[in-house]
């Protein structure tokens, strides 16, 4: 990894701008070969008959102070990755560390201490707040669980003060503590979820689709808030989303996932301007643009994402790959798994033929992109 980081430094001074400027910040979270499989049971005896390979050997690092965007379509494993990383579920394999401390091997009191450093904001602002609890309990529960002599959160007056402070920090009124979730709108509920996560003073926050359930006008309020809070509390975000424009807006670096693997990773400008994985190219071209003058050249992918229980051999994208088709179906896409290699400083891609992705090939592919094409069966599982 070298100095090549594209975000312009001048803009970096504006509010909510990328902190990761000219030089790469030190690594905060380091993920090595993370694997998460879910067993499939079948037959009369409910024996294990296979695995859903939700996350399959993923390695990357999140740098201190940055927003790392993770994009991909539903079922690609991005949420599983986030949840496994902060130990909401046990990993199948691999390792991860935060600030040098291993995450997956901690137990008991050590684990509890670790949990405070890593929090999560959920997608569904309705489902993630207990309807029977007033806001003070929703935010206070974590404080109580993490109370110790040092922070004094066991003391009810301290706790109330802290809850009110955080309600204020997320733009809600201090006197909302006695209210219940149903009294709030979707945007306000999401603010409560954010207050709950931040009240524990984490360094690293997994934002799992925090704005997807919200209307555009509310979405922008929450995005602004997340960026403000990052500055105020020196946070690092792993921002998981399927909305590519949101990820482009908020992230410093972006990883693209497909069927349990990261297929491309680069600083945000580099990824959006110069995508090198054929999947990333197609994904970006599929986003509708709100400017009616730009008729995009679009590559329409064929069919659906294959089942993660039986991912294709070699490169997992080869069944839908437009580039492979243009190159005359080279053999190694099917037989060899592409290495996740660096093609340029800080830009990594898992494709044998990434060098063939040029403006020319993309344009041609888009021009010839078959519009109505048959959706392939999702292979009878």
């Amino acid at each position, binding site marked *: 990894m070298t100095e090549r980081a594209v975000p312009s430094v001048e803009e970096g001074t504006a509010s909510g701008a990328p902190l990761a400027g000219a030089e790469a910040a030190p690594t905060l979270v380091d993920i090595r070969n993370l694997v998460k499989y879910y067993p499939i049971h079948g037959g009369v005896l409910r024996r294990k008959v296979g695995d859903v390979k939700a996350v399959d050997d993923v390695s990357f690092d999140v740098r201190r102070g940055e927003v790392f965007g993770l994009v991909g379509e539903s079922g690609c494993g991005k949420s599983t990755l986030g949840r496994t990383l902060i130990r909401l579920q046990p990993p199948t394999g691999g390792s991860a560390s935060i600030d040098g401390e291993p995450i997956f091997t901690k137990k008991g009191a050590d684990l509890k201490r670790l949990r405070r450093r890593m929090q999560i904001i959920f997608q569904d602002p309705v489902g993630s707040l207990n309807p029977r609890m007033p806001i003070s309990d929703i935010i206070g529960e974590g404080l109580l669980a993490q109370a110790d002599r040092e922070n004094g959160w066991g003391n009810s007056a301290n706790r109330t003060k802290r809850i009110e402070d955080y309600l204020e920090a997320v733009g809600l009124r201090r006197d909302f503590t006695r209210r219940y979730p149903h009294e709030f709108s979707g945007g306000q509920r999401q603010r409560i979820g954010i207050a709950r996560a931040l009240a524990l003073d984490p360094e690293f926050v997994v934002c799992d689709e925090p704005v997807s359930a919200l209307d555009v006008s509310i979405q922008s309020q929450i995005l*602004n808030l997340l960026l403000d809070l990052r500055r105020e509390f020196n946070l690092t975000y792993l921002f998981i989303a399927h909305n590519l*424009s949101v990820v482009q*807006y908020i992230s410093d670096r972006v990883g693209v996932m497909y069927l349990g693997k990261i297929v491309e990773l680069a600083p945000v400008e580099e990824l959006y301007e110069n995508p090198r994985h054929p999947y990333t190219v197609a*994904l970006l071209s599929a986003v*509708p643009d709100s400017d009616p*003058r730009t008729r995009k050249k679009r590559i*329409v992918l064929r069919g*659906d994402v294959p089942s993660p229980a039986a991912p294709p051999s070699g490169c997992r994208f080869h069944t839908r790959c437009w580039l492979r088709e243009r190159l005359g179906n080279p053999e190694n896409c099917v037989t060899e798994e592409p290495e996740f290699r660096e093609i340029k400083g800080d830009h990594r891609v898992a494709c044998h033929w990434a060098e063939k992705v040029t403006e020319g090939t993309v344009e041609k592919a888009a021009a010839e992109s078959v*519009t109505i094409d048959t959706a392939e069966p*999702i292979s009878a599982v």
Partner: protein
Amino acid sequence: MAVTKSVLPGGSGRPPSLDNLLEVRDLHTHFHVMDGVVRAVDGVSFAIRPGQTLGVVGESGCGKSVTALTIMRLLDMPPARIGETSEIWFEGRDLLRLSEEEMRHVRGNDIAMIFQEPMTSLNPVFTVGDQIAEAVMQHHAVKRRAAMDKAIDSLKAVGINNPERRVMQYPHELSGGMRQRVMIAMALSCDPKLIIADEPTTALDVTIQAQILELIRTVQDDTGAALMLITHDLGVVAETVHDAIVMYSGRVVETGTVEEVLLAPKHPYTEGLLSSIPSKGKRGARLNVIKGTVPNPLNMPQGCNFAPRCPYRFDACGPHDPRIEDANPPDVACWLYTAAPGHGIPPRVRPRVESEATA
């Protein structure tokens, strides 16, 4: 660009224009609930010409889906109530005054609807073939065998390969994108003249969304059907429709061609909506926000519904309620463009008057 505006004067009782396939006039759909009256649709008028694509844009709760359901007469009444002056003209008939029997013939045959959630709108205990064939048999005097053939044809038309096998499958055996194709096949099976698509791609991933939008476009080109596309996604609107109406809390606040609405928005709400979309040019800067939230439908503000959130609000907005019909031309419901009662020249003088004159 043609100057045909999508909004018409409401409740006039005059016969519909022959140019229009669908004319909605002064539509009011209110829900009488325990706490009061929710004016979900409050005086909405618009028209769709044959073969036209009209986008209906707005955030959740603005009344766009209720408008569609009212046109299809799919709402339970009560609690829903439709205003007495409201009219929905479709091919010379007022749909609101048809009998249930006649309406059943219109649904599917003349107007078909594609719903947002393909999983819940398909019946899980019947095969997709049965469900399409049922619709065909409802509307045409054909035997089951012929209806099944028609089902296979329509699945083929929406790009599903191996349709002979697919008709035997149940909805849970299909992916989200495939289910949405089945829904579209079902909507097309009776050759409707108008397709109402209510958020047809919202539940789908972008790559699948691109497939479905492409499909809807092709189908429309092939069949010449008109399309009313309801969505909250301005990108989808920009790519798919010719004309758009923007709704806010039960009202149409702006209308025009898609270029007019998205490139030169007039209403402060449309302007705010567009500027709050994150995009690459806005990186590093704060996003514009529309402050506050949509008003409580049980407790609407006095005057303009958008006034409490509007950055340009002035003394005319509080007491007076702007109506799009009063504007000249009728393309925006805002006192910035129309002289409010007791107020002189509106703050934003309209530069469009000459172009109207030349047209």
